[in-house]
């Protein structure tokens, strides 16, 4: 599914908050159609990397390219290609599911008639068509996260960035989310997802990266890994980081 050309590329990417260096000269390439699981302990820079790729924060030094466009110089062109799902749902609780999607469709300049059709199709896809006119504040955490995915896919982005999307989800909601992510990947989207769930990462991703000490501590195709093998690698990489 993945082709050879990198859709996402970082070159010597560094991000520091005052004296704290979160990412240090990170070189990374993600090919079109890959599903990359980004692992690492808290503070290893997973969320920061995703925010950098989304253009939500600027690098301290180095370069980021998404689809050939450079961030932050050509961030507007990149934003149209990116959908993001976070552990925060990025939705308005006092609007209905449909109103939320209509609002975001307007921000992406999708014509009203097309927006309506796309919004209803996405709600159908995430299993919320019957709750289209319900206020988001009446939704469970799992339903909100499904709606969040519908929002992120509304403008048909090439790249889906997911920042710990399983946070707060129960077993059923997590399985539903698995299905939606597999579907998005099957549609040809490139996915980069940060998570702490090693077994799940080995199961649904096509490639696994472990961030450690501001760089890539481990990088391998997920197909070659079982959950246990990945857990062993994770322990090795993160304990190496602690001992240094």
């Amino acid at each position: 599914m993945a082709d050879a050309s990198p859709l996402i590329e970082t070159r010597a990417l560094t991000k520091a908050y005052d004296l704290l260096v979160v990412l240090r000269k990170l070189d990374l390439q993600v090919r079109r159609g890959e599903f990359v699981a980004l692992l690492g302990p808290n503070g290893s820079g997973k969320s920061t990397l995703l925010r950098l790729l989304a253009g939500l924060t600027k690098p301290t030094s180095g370069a980021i390219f998404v689809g050939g466009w450079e961030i932050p110089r050509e961030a507007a062109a990149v934003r149209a290609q990116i959908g993001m799902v976070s552990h925060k749902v990025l939705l308005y609780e006092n609007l209905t599911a449909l109103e939320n999607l209509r609002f975001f469709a307007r921000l992406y300049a999708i014509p009203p008639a097309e927006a309506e059709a796309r919004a209803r199709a996405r709600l159908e896809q995430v299993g919320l068509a019957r709750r289209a006119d319900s206020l988001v504040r009446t939704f469970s955490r799992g339903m909100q996260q499904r709606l969040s995915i519908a929002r992120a896919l509304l403008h048909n982005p090439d790249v889906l960035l997911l920042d710990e999307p399983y946070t707060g989800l129960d077993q059923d909601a997590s399985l539903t989310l698995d299905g939606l992510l597999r579907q998005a990947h099957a549609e040809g989207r490139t996915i980069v997802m940060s998570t702490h769930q090693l077994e799940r990462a080995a199961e649904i991703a096509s490639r696994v990266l472990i961030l450690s000490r501001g760089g890539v501590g481990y990088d391998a195709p997920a197909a070659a890994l079982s959950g246990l093998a990945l857990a062993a690698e994770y322990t090795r990489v993160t304990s190496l980081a602690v001992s240094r």
Partner: protein
Amino acid sequence: MNTPFLAAVAAIVAKDLRAELRSRELVSSMALFALLSILIFSFALELNRLARQEAIGGVLWVTVAFASIIGLNRSLAGERDQGNLDAMLLAPIARSAVFFGKLAGNFVFTLAVGLILLPLLTVLFNLNLVQPWVLVVLALGVLGFSVVGTLLATMTVQTRAREALLPIVMLPVALPVLLGAVRATTAILNGAPLEDWIAWPQILVVVNVIYLTLCYLLFDYVIED
């Protein structure tokens, strides 16, 4: 390609108005605070007519200033806490569209509270505040508060002590707006001739243009991590 600027602003304003019409969280808390404030002022200041004429401009604008701070804090905190500010910034829209969209919503909500206050103050202080020039000054003053407040609330909402911090940073910056609005309102209610006080609304217009330009230029930096 960015979404057209005005279309993005209109979408954000429409979203804020729709959410507020449904929940009434912002305007009701601002209006309740304002109502309690003017009641306390009216009981605390047992003044004769002349003294009331001198004091009522201050009462109106102190109440509007603090009510606007309540609204600004809640308006931006709602965006930040749910991550919606990020969701808007992810869209291909100019950063300034977020500023002008939030500004327009904050202006409408604060103006609505000001418009509720005018007839209430008229009754409580037995002075007619529902006058065309008072309405003009109210709109100009509220615009000034909303411009400065939207920018500063975007900054302070990222801090832990946001509710305490906003008035501390906003009131000194908004002082020229407060001063101009109080002076103009007091002069109008005292029946002073137009040429004696018209400079104050004109100063408000100039201050608003300056603040609007500065805030527009600074918003991109403020919104960054």
